[in-house]
């Protein structure tokens, strides 16, 4: 392949009148990654905005087709790198549906999965809040949120062995039980959280500068939001209370008490408030999971050595375990042919996998429904009529992650 690509031409946006074409990005600090936006502007006003994506395309969906069912999950975790556990969660649920083992997942494993998903949601919103604050000039927020995130990453490291991509949630359950002392560390986080949220709200929520920047910027009506296929907090800020955890409960979400925060206004400030509320709702769920975990014992992985590797400690003792372990690692497992669409609520919206199996030991096709991509696409309808400076606020309020947009 030659490297001399045809340059992005201004034909991307139609040119007429006194409009000027401005390329924002792909190295702009406020684009949260590698996003280029071709803007047609008249003075400071945006006439048309055309986001150019693909700078971070790494062919994850193609790569998955060459991996075992178990190792493809590792790739999937790299899509939304701010919420890796949510990606693994959704993939595992989809494969379990195809295998027909959804109702055999141990109770404790389901609780640990929910715990991880909600912890990751808070950690992901922490990054959004911190970097979004920097976009608006509120630099100190970053240190508060990343301190909180650090505690959550420590918990993930304790459970899964890695901070960023723990690969802890697996097909069939989770990889090993929670370590000793985990609940105590979780308790200290639960104790610290309300005070930290109070700080953040005090810093941001009533801050007149932030309100001036965010209120009435990037308004989406419910009709527009549905038409543009926006999901997650951004949709709920427009007044549509669609939350996959409530609409299609999975992994025991129907047992937990939590509200779905919504706002009526549909502007950037509403999206900001919805995410703040969501962090607190997540903590509510975490507290309930914690109490349940203390009562629930038992295995954390399905007792089916065709789908899950046998416990490590049995390998030295049992011939069968050794054989199963060897087969699992070298051949993987087979999944009956069929297709499935599994949706979950990731921090950004409806994250779903459409997975096709041909009966082999590798996925035939793994199609992701990337919430970030569709949320970002709505910028085309949202940006015109606003100022360039407000575009930064709108991108921040949509919270795109480019690992997922470009995959």
């Amino acid at each position: 392949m030659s490297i001399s690509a045809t340059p992005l031409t201004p034909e991307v946006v139609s040119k007429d009148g006194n409009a000027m074409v401005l390329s924002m990005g792909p190295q702009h600090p406020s684009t949260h990654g590698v996003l280029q936006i071709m803007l047609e502007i008249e003075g400071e006003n945006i006439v048309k905005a055309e986001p150019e994506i693909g700078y971070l395309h790494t062919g994850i969906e193609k790569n998955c087709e060459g991996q075992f069912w178990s190792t493809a999950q590792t790739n999937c975790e790299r899509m939304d790198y701010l919420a890796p556990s949510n990606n693994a969660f959704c993939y595992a649920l989809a494969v379990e549906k195809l295998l027909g083992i959804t109702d055999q997942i141990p109770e404790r494993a389901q609780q640990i999965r929910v715990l991880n998903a909600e912890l990751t949601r808070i950690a992901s919103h922490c990054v959004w809040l911190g970097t979004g604050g920097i976009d608006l000039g509120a630099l100190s927020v970053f240190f508060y949120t990343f301190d909180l995130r650090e505690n959550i990453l420590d918990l993930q490291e304790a459970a899964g062995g890695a901070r960023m991509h723990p690969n802890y949630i697996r097909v069939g359950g989770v990889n090993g039980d929670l370590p000793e002392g985990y609940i105590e560390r979780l308790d200290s986080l639960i104790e610290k959280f309300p005070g930290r949220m109070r700080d953040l709200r005090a810093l941001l929520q009533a801050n007149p500068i932030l309100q001036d920047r965010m209120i009435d910027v990037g308004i989406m009506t419910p009709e527009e939001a549905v038409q543009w296929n926006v999901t997650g907090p951004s949709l709920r800020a427009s007044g549509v209370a669609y939350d996959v955890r409530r609409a299609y409960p999975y992994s025991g979400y129907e047992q937990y008490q939590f509200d779905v925060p919504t706002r009526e206004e549909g502007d950037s400030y509403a999206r900001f408030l919805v995410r703040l509320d969501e962090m607190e709702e997540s903590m509510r769920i975490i507290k309930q999971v914690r109490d349940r975990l203390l009562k629930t014992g038992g295995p954390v992985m399905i007792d089916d050595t065709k789908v899950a590797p046998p416990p490590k400690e049995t390998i030295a003792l049992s011939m069968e375990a050794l054989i199963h372990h060897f087969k699992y690692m070298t051949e993987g497992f087979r999944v009956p042919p069929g297709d499935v669409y599994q949706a979950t609520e990731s921090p950004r919206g409806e994250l779903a996998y459409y997975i096709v199996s041909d009966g082999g030991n590798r996925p035939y096709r793994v199609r992701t429904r990337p919430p970030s991509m569709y949320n970002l696409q709505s910028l085309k309808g949202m940006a015109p009529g606003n100022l360039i400076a407000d575009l930064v606020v709108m991108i921040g309020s949509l919270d795109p992650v480019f690992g997922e947009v470009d995959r």
Partner: protein
Amino acid sequence: MPSTQSPPLLGGAIDPTAVRPPIDDAIVERVDPSRVHQRLAELKNEGYTMLLDVGGVDYPQRTPRFDVVYHLLKMPLRKTSVSEVGTPQRLRLLCGVPADATTLPTATDLWKSADWAEREIYDLFGITFDGHPDMRRIQMPNDWEGYPLRKDYPMRGPARERSPRPAFALKTNVNAGTPPSGRTLEALQKQIARAKSGAHGEQS
């Protein structure tokens, strides 16, 4: 163990969507390419207001070869509470696209959100959408050859022989003269060739 470079094509002849186990995740419908736009418009009128996703699948040994998969959701077009949303109905519309006529009518006139999804299918599968306002590649570079998510596209990209090496790696591009160390590119290549042929100890 099969190489990861060529994913197994076994099973491409069968249609996994036809033999799927009873999984209750959506209403599944199959439609011909000639009727897909009409059907989508009907469904939109029936209340499927959200086009959640459009994806593609390639079954090289099946006729028709491709599947374009529309995921629809029945969502009220107004402000709603959790109980009003309830459990919205999902619908999956599969449309078989033959290998010799890889064109479908666009859905962008019904849903604006179909824009990038259709571009992505064009980019990765080579299926074009008639009437799409901006049918360009979206993920891959504009001058990319081939459609990466097709099953006959190699996992690690086109064969290396077919693609020229980048300009900076070409010998003709080295015109900076002899580097200070005195080791020219030719000398280095000779050294490598000697090492490869196993002629050790011949230091010159």
